[in-house]
């Protein structure tokens, strides 16, 4: 475990520098300047997580004309044969970047279990604490000397903490969570305070503590820990100090500027959408630009639609959510491209499951894990194609079923990761990144 640690001297220098307000230009800037041009740069991943389970029939696998199809029209993308919902018209301009997988077939139609499965590739409940793919791939892809956390998660549904954690991996790969609203806002109103939510929690000293006090506290703490660890260099104590040093580095250095969206042009910010998800996508780009290997951005709601869990009024909800998703995702692709980052950034679109092809009495669709869709886009992906197929009524996978392991393996390959690599699990047994049984969709990997 190569935990980049600061020497005691570095630490004290940093503390002191922060106190007197000296700007640490630091190594991060060098790193950031170098990223876009570096050909050997490892890939990053942005996971667009659709909380609640998005309806495949009304986004990426429409069945116009069939009674299960619903009212939405299908539109052309810039690639013949790849057709998607009319409410994703901006994204349709980037069909050449998309690989639509229409044959997801998992067996978990419960929010918690599906979320765990789609994040870890495993069903929950066993003795092994599987890591979230964010942690799994962050560990493989993080650049040395990264001052920022390597797995950042924006506005996750925190009812499934295990889907955000490092599991049996070093907990420093657990997600660094921003914008955790805590409990769901039942009115469905998007959080108005998204600017505030996207700031790092607790990254600033409490208001009543002066800069001089904070500096004194840190100096004393370093002395105390130094003394304690001299005799007791055990794991928990060492990890404690490492985490504090990373936390202080984050507070003090330029790294935290990544979270300052105010540096972005107003026009660009508006293109992403003035809402939590849109600005979250923009933040994801800023983080990826600075070397963060894995960012998850969750879309949980839009005005009038409180999640993708559209048991009733499905079409109204999906339309509203699409209106948030479409500009954010399309702009993300364009912005990454402008910055020269698109070829090294994989974008994954997924939720915990899909929704019933059958439309229920409340004009809704219920949980459905048997035949649904996910999308891969950008770096590492052969775009402009559709993989797999569902039956005419949408209830069966007709071609190329893809399960949780297959999906995880495909993401891994697109990121250029050796998916056969083992990690040591919490029960002391090696566990591969994906199981030997996983069948990655090789044809979508560039």
């Amino acid at each position, binding site marked *: 475990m190569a935990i980049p640690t600061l020497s005691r001297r570095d630490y004290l220098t940093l503390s002191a520098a922060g106190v007197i307000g000296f700007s640490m230009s630091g190594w991060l800037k060098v790193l950031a300047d170098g990223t876009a041009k570096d050909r050997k740069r490892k890939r990053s991943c942005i996971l667009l997580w659709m909380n609640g389970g998005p309806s495949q029939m009304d986004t990426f696998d429409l069945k116009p004309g069939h009674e299960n199809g619903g009212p939405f029209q299908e539109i052309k993308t810039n690639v013949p044969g790849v057709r998607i919902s009319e409410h994703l018209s901006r994204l349709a301009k980037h069909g050449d970047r998309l690989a639509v997988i229409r044959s997801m077939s998992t067996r978990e139609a*419960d929010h*918690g*279990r599906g*979320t*765990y499965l789609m994040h870890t590739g495993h069903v*929950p*409940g*066993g*003795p092994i*604490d*599987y890591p979230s793919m964010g942690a799994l791939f962050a560990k493989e892809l993080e650049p040395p000397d990264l001052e920022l*956390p390597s797995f950042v998660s924006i506005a996750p549904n*925190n*009812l*499934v*903490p*295990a889907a955000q954690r*490092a599991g*049996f991996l070093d*907990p*420093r790969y*657990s997600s*660094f*969570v921003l914008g955790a609203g805590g*409990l769901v806002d039942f009115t469905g109103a998007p959080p108005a305070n998204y600017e505030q939510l996207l700031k790092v*929690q*607790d*990254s*600033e*000293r*409490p*208001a*009543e*503590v*002066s800069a*001089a*006090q904070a500096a*004194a*506290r840190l100096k*004393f*703490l370093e002395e*105390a*820990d130094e003394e*304690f*660890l001299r*005799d*007791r260099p*055990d*794991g*928990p104590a060492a*990890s*404690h*100090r490492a*985490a*504090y040093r*990373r*936390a202080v580095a*984050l507070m003090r250095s330029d790294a935290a500027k990544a979270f300052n969206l105010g540096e972005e042009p107003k026009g660009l910010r508006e293109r992403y959408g003035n809402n939590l998800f849109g600005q979250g996508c923009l933040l994801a780009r800023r983080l990826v630009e600075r070397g963060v290997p894995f960012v998850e951005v969750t879309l949980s709601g839009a005005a009038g639609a409180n999640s993708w869990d559209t048991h009733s009024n499905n079409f109204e909800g999906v339309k509203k959510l699409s209106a948030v998703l479409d500009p954010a995702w399309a702009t993300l692709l364009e912005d990454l491209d402008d910055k020269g980052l698109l070829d090294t950034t994989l974008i994954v679109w997924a939720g915990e499951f899909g929704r019933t092809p059958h439309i229920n009495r409340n004009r809704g669709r219920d949980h459905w894990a048997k035949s649904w869709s996910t999308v891969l886009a950008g770096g590492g992906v052969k775009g402009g194609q559709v993989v797999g197929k569902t039956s005419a009524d949408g209830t069966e996978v007709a071609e190329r079923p893809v399960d949780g392991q297959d999906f995880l393996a495909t993401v891994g390959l697109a990121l250029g990761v050796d998916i056969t690599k083992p990690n040591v699990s*919490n029960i*002391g047994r090696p566990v591969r990144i994906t199981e030997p049984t996983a069948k990655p969709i090789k044809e979508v990997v560039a």
Partner: protein
Amino acid sequence: MTPVGIHSVGKGLALAGALLLLAATPARAEPPKARQTETDRAAAALAAKIDERFAKRWKDREVQPAPPADDAEFLRRVYLDLAGRIPSAGEARRFLDDTSPDKRRRLVDDLLNGPAFVTHWVNVWRALLLPEFRTLDVNGQARFFEGGGYSFEAWLRKQLEEGVGYDRMVRELLTAPVDGLVAAGTDTFAPRTAQPSAVTFYNLKKVQPENLAASTARLFLGVRLECAQCHNHPFAKWKQEQFWSQAAFFAGLEAPGDKDRPRPFRDNPDKRDITMPGAGKVVPARFLDGGEPKWQDQVSSRRTLADWVTAPNNPYFPRAAANRLWAYFLGTGLIEPVDEMVGDMAQNNDPGGLLDELAGALVAHDFDLKFLMRAITASKVYQLTSARTHASQDDPRLFGRMTARGLTGEQLFDSYALATGYRPRPLVTVIPSLPNVAPPGVPPRDMFREQFLSTFANQSDRAADSQTSIQQALALMNGAAAGGLARSRTVTALADFPLMTTAERVEALYLATLSRKPRPGELERFVKYVDRGGALADGKEPQEKDKTAALADVLWVLLNSAEFKVNH
């Protein structure tokens, strides 16, 4: 800043608080006679046997064991291990000032019989028996909802309060009556009654015989069967048929109907076989050691299994219990992993016959886990310092010094609350339709505690592997808990108490957090800092408020230190 909170309720309380922090609590009117019961003698004898074996082990392996822990180190360790929290400043003082030779044994007695023991071991068993709470969606919710559903927590509490033997607790779990009870839906929880019941265990294993077989074998027998669920592995000890013949004991359990909705459990207590999926082969229930169950009329399959599991001569059960307990107190099992004591994966750290000795003692004392706790905590091995004095102590499997272990979220919160004088506030649920019903005997939830626990949820089963995240560090450094330290009861009490010197105040903070007195260098450093008004600019005359702020800084340093964050 003007201290609020405690000030508003009057000075009297603050003084009383300071007394607790400061006073050498008057020793008990009459120090209890060193009454040695039969049990005490037996525990001491077992402790001596533990130490004999390690003395030999260390000699053979050329280990220079660390010196014994001093009173303060022992005190903090044994409080965290048995009561799940650090001692209060008053408790620490009382113990440190006590001069009687058997004070360590008496402390263990007091802790084993105290209310915190029950609360802490409910948490320990709950985490162990329901690990799904960590990995499953119900995680955050379960903490809210379980209090109102069938309460596993209340059930555990009942076992611990009644002090039942470990065999009886396991038997009750394995034979828990479920017929007619409501199985939770995957999306919906059972009706909110507050009935103590072990049914949550079955619910979280999804009422599936294979899950129940795998977890009970792992938990109670130290045997890992899961790998044999799907097929035979060439080198593994357990065959697929053995797995399913174990699952067959639970085959009578069903919860038919829509899995998404609450529905009634059904138990066919006499079902004694199961169909292996795929193969279609029907496998009869059979014990893991190959033994054929002696079926009796009116005795259910689960009961038959429970009788075998908890029998004194079960080859796995007492050893698995003793090993788990050893690992809990020493950080590493005599056999590791504790969930997989049998087979090629198992690593033997036993100095020679010790596990059999402990298991035998457990059986001889009617599966009273407290007896083993007494013996282990009385041993020299447990009472070694965690400070490293020689390289031969580096291999934790040789137990040459105590391993520093991470705290659970509960241990950390309860210690933090005690050290700062935090008073819990009842949780007001934000969802009005879900009342905050606490089952009888289960303490009501505290909102700040719940948030804290979700930030500090444990990642690892092994306390020795526990780690800190950046966010946990930020939360402790800058979060809600750190902000108001100058207004905490501890700081205001010390600041308001007129007759204390700065040195006494600093000492009180050390006792309240690290359960020890400051070393001379530490004392000098902090007294100087507080007297000069903390971080006040040079040349300014320090006011009382500056000194209070400086005391809060000292408290912050102690609470954020690695020494506070680990059980050492």
